């Protein structure tokens, strides 16, 4: 048992268990009656989860129980207060009563559910120091120790369960009476580590569809899994070598090297995050469960707002539906802006709503001041854009510049990437003062070079360059209107099999893992 845990710790544990999860469920799809499939999905997922989170798994079960009860309570409120057959004034009164009761239930639920999340996260803040202290006495400093106080994916399953409860309160669907089905939704193993965030009606419609396994979705899913693992082990692993070294030794470098560090971190973050999402979606696809996509060419965004509709799309959608819209439609805000001229009421409504979103987004990513400033940074960027964009557009109209020129698009993309890059640099730096120092040093001309042999072999460096090119290949082909996915689907099963085997060989040979190498702590994995 000890040897197995050692082996597992050299790979990302979540990935190891998800492969086991996949295999067990494929077998179950073949031998167990369709109507019990979801139970196997639930049980295998929970077993994997408990292996990873151990005793702290109890918090997941507390959240599931709380969510289940709240859903039924909201249902009861609706059933006890019928509006059918009533005349309009009475109907309005009953609706008001339902709304008032719902509000109280939701507030209590949020206090408890978010309370658990916030308490555990802030305890984690202190336990980081405990772990560092303990590491001083350990022989091998393995930073990939799962923090013993944080249940895996607590931010994922907390927000997922909140979306379910709010949707029930809004009357989008009735509460789930089957606690096993609800548990599967909240704890769905492929999504619980890094997402994507699922909605109950959307995940429900695909997870209970009970289609049979077929070769098309099998190879589709397998290709997606392999592409994801390729991104994690070949691209992210090596880009991390760059960014870790530069961020650790930032005092020795400036100018282009700092910019390189920020770029490498962006590549690392994107490859790792989208890689894990691909694995989750690939595993689910093999089981005929469709998860939503989470990234849509984010680095081709023309504005910062657009970036956040292309990066971690499911999180953006959550904040849009459950924070941005409710805040902007709230009574207090409407009251304040009622007597104002349109331009002012628009500005205040949008700005206040965005402020709520970005403060929460910032703090969701971490519990220190740096993350709050990270959120506010993007908030300020968006406000500036909202204020100046109409003015600049009017200017363009006056000087007769065409709407969609290639030069304008490229300039917007570059500018947006610079703003995002600065934000990601802030995200990666250990604290705000380090970030400020690094940012200032970009404009200095000393130490503008770096000897990469300090931290990476020539062999690894070349593999990284090739891997990044390989990662961008589908995008490149799309420019020539060639859809690689479609081409792959049209191949015979034998050819697909050969390609997958080649990919596995490539990953095993060139992937960054194994004895002596400590995998980088997945950045979004603690959430």
């Amino acid at each position: 048992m000890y040897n197995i845990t050692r082996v597992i710790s050299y790979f990302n544990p979540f990935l190891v268990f998800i492969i086991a999860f996949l295999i067990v469920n494929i077998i179950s799809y073949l031998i167990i009656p369709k109507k019990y499939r979801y139970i196997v999905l639930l049980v295998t997922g929970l077993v994997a989860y408990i292996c990873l989170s151990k005793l702290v798994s109890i918090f997941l079960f507390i959240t599931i129980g709380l969510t289940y009860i709240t859903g039924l309570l909201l249902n009861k409120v609706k059933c006890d207060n019928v509006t059918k057959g009533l005349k309009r004034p009475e109907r309005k009164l009953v609706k008001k009563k339902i709304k008032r009761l719902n509000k109280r239930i939701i507030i209590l639920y949020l206090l408890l559910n978010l309370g658990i999340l916030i308490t555990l996260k802030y305890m984690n803040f202190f336990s980081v120091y405990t772990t560092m202290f303990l590491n001083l006495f350990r022989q091998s400093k393995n930073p990939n120790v799962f923090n013993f106080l944080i249940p895996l994916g607590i931010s994922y399953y907390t927000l997922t369960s909140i979306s379910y409860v709010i949707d029930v309160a809004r009357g989008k669907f009735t509460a789930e009476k089957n606690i096993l089905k609800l548990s599967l939704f909240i704890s769905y193993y492929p999504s619980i580590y890094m997402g994507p965030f699922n909605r109950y009606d959307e995940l429900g419609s695909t997870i209970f569809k009970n289609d049979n396994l077929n070769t098309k979705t099998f190879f589709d899913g397998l290709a997606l899994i392999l592409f994801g693992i390729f991104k994690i082990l070949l691209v992210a692993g090596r880009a991390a070598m760059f960014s870790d070294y530069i961020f650790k030794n930032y005092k020795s470098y400036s100018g282009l090297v700092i910019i390189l560090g920020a770029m490498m971190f962006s590549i690392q973050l994107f490859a790792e995050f989208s890689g894990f999402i691909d694995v989750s979606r690939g595993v689910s696809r093999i089981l005929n469960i469709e998860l939503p996509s989470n990234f849509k060419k984010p680095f081709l965004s023309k504005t910062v707002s657009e970036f956040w509709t292309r990066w971690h799309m499911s999180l953006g959608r959550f904040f849009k539906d459950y924070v941005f819209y409710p805040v902007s439609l709230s009574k207090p805000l409407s009251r304040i802006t009622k007597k104002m001229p349109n331009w002012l009421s628009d500005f205040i409504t949008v700005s206040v709503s965005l402020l709520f979103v970005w403060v929460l987004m910032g703090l969701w990513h971490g519990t220190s001041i740096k993350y709050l400033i990270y959120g506010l940074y993007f908030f300020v960027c968006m406000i500036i854009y909202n204020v100046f964009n109409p003015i600049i557009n009017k200017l363009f109209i006056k000087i007769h510049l065409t709407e969609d020129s290639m030069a304008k698009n490229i300039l917007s993309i570059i500018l947006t990437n610079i703003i995002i890059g600065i934000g990601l640099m802030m995200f990666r730096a250990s604290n705000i003062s380090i970030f400020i120092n690094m940012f200032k040093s970009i404009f200095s001309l000393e130490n503008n070079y770096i000897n990469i042999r300090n931290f990476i072999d020539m062999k690894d460096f070349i593999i990284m360059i090739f891997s990044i090119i390989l990662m961008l290949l589908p995008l490149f082909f799309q420019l020539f209107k060639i859809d690689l996915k479609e081409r792959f689907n049209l191949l015979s099963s034998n050819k697909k099999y050969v390609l997958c085997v080649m990919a596995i060989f490539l990953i095993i040979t060139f992937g960054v893992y194994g004895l002596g190498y400590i995998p980088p702590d997945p950045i979004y994995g603690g959430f």
Partner: protein
Amino acid sequence: MKEIINILNELINVKDIENKTNLIDGKILTSSNIIRLVSRLNNEFDIEISPLDLIPENFNSVASINALVERLDLE
């Protein structure tokens, strides 16, 4: 219908807006624009649009926005 078209024309500059059917899916209306649109619709027609109504089906075309307004007016 006419008031809705007027309101939309105040907010965004798109030709032939009454015949478009992909205002949301085609990203013609951004989230910020939707907020502005909703506040004006609420004021103009004395209705109360809730977050639950903010789905693509209700806002993809002028016709669907009109249907939403009429439905809320009856409630």
